[in-house]
């Protein structure tokens, strides 16, 4: 059983609470039978996830309109956020975790395809952006390998929102589709019932 729900909003802060609360209502029936502590944690994460997605569209994507499509499945929900505007810009961080100055915008050049860029770095994790083709990106976070003592002090909020999104969502992807729309998509799993 799958349900598809679509919500279209102007990309303005006034609808932020509406979309975070709406998402919570939409999946409420899917999280029955879980403990209160898990429920609180899951609700907090959902609110944060939707908040980060929507504010990214407002602040960074230059969008005027945002469409959310929720495909609610048995164990997870597929979230698509479709926006207008120029789309996602790859801005790799430097190895010392300071924000880099190189920018890559879609369509991504041939020499970038299959390359990976680190777009967020913290003491333990990094967010990797992989260029799948000229219009598609994939994001994931991974634990960092060997670290020097000084690197443990690295703390940079660059793309912190993206780190949160990749941490809370799975299969996080961006695509500039054939109509020039920006499609950001991810999967959010429901916690298992106790």
């Amino acid at each position, binding site marked *: 059983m799958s349900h598809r729900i679509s919500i279209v909003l102007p990309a303005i802060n006034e609808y932020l609470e509406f979309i975070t609360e709406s998402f919570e209502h939409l999946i409420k029936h899917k999280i029955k039978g879980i403990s209160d502590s898990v429920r609180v944690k899951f609700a907090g994460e959902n609110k944060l996830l939707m908040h980060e997605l929507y504010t990214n569209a407002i602040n960074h994507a230059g969008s005027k309109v945002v469409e959310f499509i929720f495909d609610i499945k048995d164990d997870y929900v597929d979230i698509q956020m479709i926006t207008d505007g120029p789309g996602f810009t790859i801005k790799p961080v430097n190895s010392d975790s300071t924000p880099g100055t190189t920018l890559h915008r879609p369509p991504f050049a041939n020499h970038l395809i299959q390359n990976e860029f680190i777009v967020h770095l913290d003491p*333990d994790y990094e967010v990797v952006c992989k260029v799948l083709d000229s219009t598609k990106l994939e994001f994931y976070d991974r634990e960092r390998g060997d670290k020097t003592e000084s690197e443990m002090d690295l703390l940079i909020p660059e793309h912190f929102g993206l780190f949160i999104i990749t941490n809370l969502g799975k299969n996080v992807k961006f695509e500039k589709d054939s109509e020039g729309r920006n499609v950001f998509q991810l999967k959010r799993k429901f916690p298992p019932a106790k």
Partner: protein
Amino acid sequence: MKTLDKNNFVVYKYSGEKGTQLDAPAFKSAIFEFIESNPKKIIVIDLSGVEYVDSSFLGVLVAAYKEANSRDQEIVISGLTDMVSSVFESTRLYTVFRIIKSVEEI
């Protein structure tokens, strides 16, 4: 914002119910000024009245942490509500900050 000044620490009480991108700029100015004007070893940021935070607000906390570190001070977070606590857990910031329930734990 209210402050509670003890011997080795001082408390900055954040008075809003939310900490979002809309609140972050004013909070950043206020907390940096607070750090600068309080040479105490420990700066406690009391978030007990806060129901929700986003990455912008967390970014300010991280910036405050770095600023305090550069002055040989420590930022300690107190009074996290369940919802905000879950955000700290999701973002792994609980590994960065010392988190306490109340100033009695200092």
